[in-house]
């Protein structure tokens, strides 16, 4: 029961967090917390197979699928705070409290009896015993799930499929389009310039410098520019003074052989 009492508050807190966080990615993370805690509870409940399946299928596959879709839809797509039906939140909260109360009261009315435990049922291993049941008593249901999975896979493919409405642009078309753009607007037909590569900074948020010392707008992503996280090259030049001051006394001794560092011979001798 130790695992339960440690994990139950975490799970309830994380599940409540799903209700209140604004961003969908945070909700997915909190759901991952709940699911991994559930996996640990399964292990505590003598279900090692479901423990593995819970981690592999739920946390590994399903949550990753959620995150992929979130990335496709746009991570910053936050929930709207506008209530379409007036008083819906309050009504939902009351309904939830009622449902919780009914469930808890109902459960507390029931006597569950002594726990038999799975020591007999797991004789010879949990997985072989599950397989025995799955391939004898539940074999038809098991086979039906294959039809379900095939249907789901084909359904997802059909739904995600997009008919191509315009002919695919070939390399020759792209070259022609670029030259046409160059003739019309003067846009450079070659690839965009790479971000700046400086001595201390070469990340994508550093714009490249043009020959006249100004920065090239085309060398940084529009997203970074919109977020305002682009570093300026002159600011990096200011940095040089700070760094030199920090390293100042090291520079003075730069060319002197340092007495504290043992030479190779001494190191060999000490061994």
């Amino acid at each position, binding site marked *: 029961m130790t695992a339960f*009492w440690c994990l139950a508050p975490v799970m309830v807190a994380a*599940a409540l967090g799903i209700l209140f966080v604004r961003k969908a990615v945070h909700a997915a993370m909190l759901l991952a917390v709940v699911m991994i805690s559930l996996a640990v509870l399964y292990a505590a409940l003598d279900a090692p197979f479901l423990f593995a399946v819970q981690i592999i299928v739920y946390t590994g596959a399903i949550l990753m699928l*959620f995150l992929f879709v979130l990335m496709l839809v746009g991570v910053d797509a936050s929930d*709207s705070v506008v209530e379409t039906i007036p008083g819906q939140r309050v009504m939902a909260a009351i309904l939830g409290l009622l449902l919780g109360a009914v469930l808890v009261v109902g459960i507390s009315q029931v006597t569950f009896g002594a726990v038999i435990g799975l020591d007999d049922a797991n004789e010879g291993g949990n997985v072989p015993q599950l397989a025995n049941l799955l391939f004898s008593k539940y074999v038809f*249901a098991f086979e039906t799930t294959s039809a379900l999975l095939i249907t789901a896979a084909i359904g997802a493919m059909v*739904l995600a499929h997009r008919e191509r409405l315009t002919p695919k642009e070939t390399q020759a078309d792209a070259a022609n389009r670029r030259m046409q753009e160059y003739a019309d607007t003067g846009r450079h037909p070659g690839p965009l310039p790479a971000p700046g590569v400086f001595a201390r900074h070469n990340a994508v948020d550093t714009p490249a410098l043009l020959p006249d010392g100004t920065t090239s707008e085309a060398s940084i992503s529009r997203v970074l520019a919109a977020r305002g996280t682009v570093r300026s090259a002159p600011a990096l030049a200011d940095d040089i003074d700070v760094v030199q001051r920090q390293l100042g006394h090291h520079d003075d001794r730069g060319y002197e052989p340092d007495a504290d560092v043992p030479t190779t011979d001494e190191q060999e001798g000490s061994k």
Partner: protein
Amino acid sequence: MRTEPYIVLSAILFTIGCVGVLVRRNAIVVFMCVELMLNASNLALVTFAKANGNLEGQIAAFFVMVVAAAEVVVGLAIIMTIFRTRRSASVDDASLLKY
């Protein structure tokens, strides 16, 4: 081991998932809450498997997981399709049948 705390935890998680489906407007988060409800029921099934001393509950939980996986695949594909046509993943925007 006692059964009641597990079942009560399962009920609480189910209730939270239920409220989440009612409250949240983002279709993906609504879907996550559905997953939370399925997980809560799984916890109850696995607990009862241990309490009753046979593996039928674990088999049922296994089937719930299979169905949940299939459901997530199709559901997320539907959300993607709606997002592609309406540029929104909010459940309020998919109200074409109303008009």
